């Protein structure tokens, strides 16, 4: 049976992620777990994350899941969500600087306070909260049946500024252009919350459940 493991390290909105996956999983099984063996045995893995990145990294490490995530990243479809995307990068400036897993290249930075939108002249607030457009930068199985520039739900104060890297799968504009999705081989990670993004969010999870990377 096709199983998806949602990594439970106490730092995610696991209820929403697992319910959304269950909604699109069909015959597949959704397991919420922190047990390395079960994560490694699953066919695909979701790494959620909410809250401060230092706490996320500390919990992953304490539970021995940093090594598990590295192993998954080299072997099967892995989907990082929100802080679950950020921890895959090299480094985050949050919490006075936090070294991350370094599975993907990039440095996570805070949105600058008091920025003004170039078009509307509006003052941009932090956190970036609400529905913004996701501009797909590459064709990818996880974008299937999702329109170019579709809106997804974001809530975050830190982001990966767009550096036109090869891993950039989508960008979103909020004062700066930042990477709202990154992809490499069997890894896909999004800054937004598919589990809170209504139909398009569920479509992305459905695409992930079918993805044979």
């Amino acid at each position, binding site marked *: 049976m096709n199983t998806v493991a949602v990594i439970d390290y106490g730092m995610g909105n696991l209820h929403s992620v697992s319910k959304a996956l269950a909604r699109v999983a069909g015959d597949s099984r959704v397991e919420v777990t922190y047990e390395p063996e079960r994560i490694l045995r699953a066919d695909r893995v979701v790494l959620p994350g909410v809250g401060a990145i230092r706490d996320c990294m500390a919990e992953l490490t304490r539970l021995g899941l940093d090594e598990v995530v590295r192993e998954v990243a080299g072997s099967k479809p892995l989907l990082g969500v929100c802080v679950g995307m950020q921890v895959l990068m090299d480094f985050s400036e949050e919490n006075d600087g936090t070294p991350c897993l370094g599975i993907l290249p990039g440095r996570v930075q805070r949105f600058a306070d008091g920025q003004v939108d170039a078009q509307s002249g509006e003052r941009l607030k932090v*956190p970036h*909260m*609400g*529905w913004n457009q996701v501009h797909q930068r590459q064709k990818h199985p996880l974008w299937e049946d999702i329109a170019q520039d579709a809106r997804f739900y974001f*809530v975050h104060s830190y982001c990966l500024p767009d550096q036109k890297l090869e891993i950039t799968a989508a960008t979103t*504009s909020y004062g700066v252009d930042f990477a709202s999705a990154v992809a490499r081989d069997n890894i896909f990670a999004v800054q937004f919350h598919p589990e809170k*993004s209504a139909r398009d969010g*569920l479509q992305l999870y459905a695409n992930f459940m079918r993805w044979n990377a």
Partner: protein
Amino acid sequence: MGLAKRIIPCLDVDRGRVVKGVRFVDIRDAGDPVEIARRYDEQGADELVFLDITASSDDRATMVHVVEEVASQVFIPLTVGGGIRSNADIRRMLNAGADKVAINTAAVANPEFVREAAERFGSQCIVVAIDAKRVNEDAGPLRWEVFTHGGRKPTGIDVLEWAVRMVTCGAGELLVTSMDRDGTRDGFDLELMRSITQAVNVPVIASGGVGNLEHLSAGVLQGGADAVLAASIFHFGEYTVEQAKRNMAAHGIEVRL
């Protein structure tokens, strides 16, 4: 193109049922929360706010079930307010599937609670709800005072000072309700909204007084709100959320359609 302004239907829940009146008086039954939440989701609501107005704490467990039920069927952000007084209350709601909690009375009683909650759970899930009432209608510069207990209890606190203080404590969003307008259908208190949106750098949800679709656009264009909240215009089928969004779009406001 960029971040969309949000429309947020609000569901007042009493003992597991959605009700709506002028707050605490003339309560009309508007139906089953799960059913209503699904309907709003289908119409394109950007988020939902549930306010638990259940009087007795015994019945509060009902709210947890409502949130669980809604969260397993509706995949948009959910905010839950009413009776959030401790970290345990927040944890319970987040575990049930809420994304944010709205804190009102408990913040006034102990502002440090907001700071602790923001540190523990992250600012992104801490909304401070402010019930504001004009205090000097006739003389002097316009001022608003913070009220608690569903607008019944004055606190003597100035609303603008309070808003800034709550953001400093870590509130990630403010839900500002005009007690003068709530239930009147006369439109938002736009001066109140504008004063607050200019004073803080977090998103502000305007609430209280929406009677027609033009009011929603005014909240954004004149009030400077990032999101607009309404209840009765949606509950009784007067307007759909989609109609509201098309109207906002016609005013040049960016919305998710």
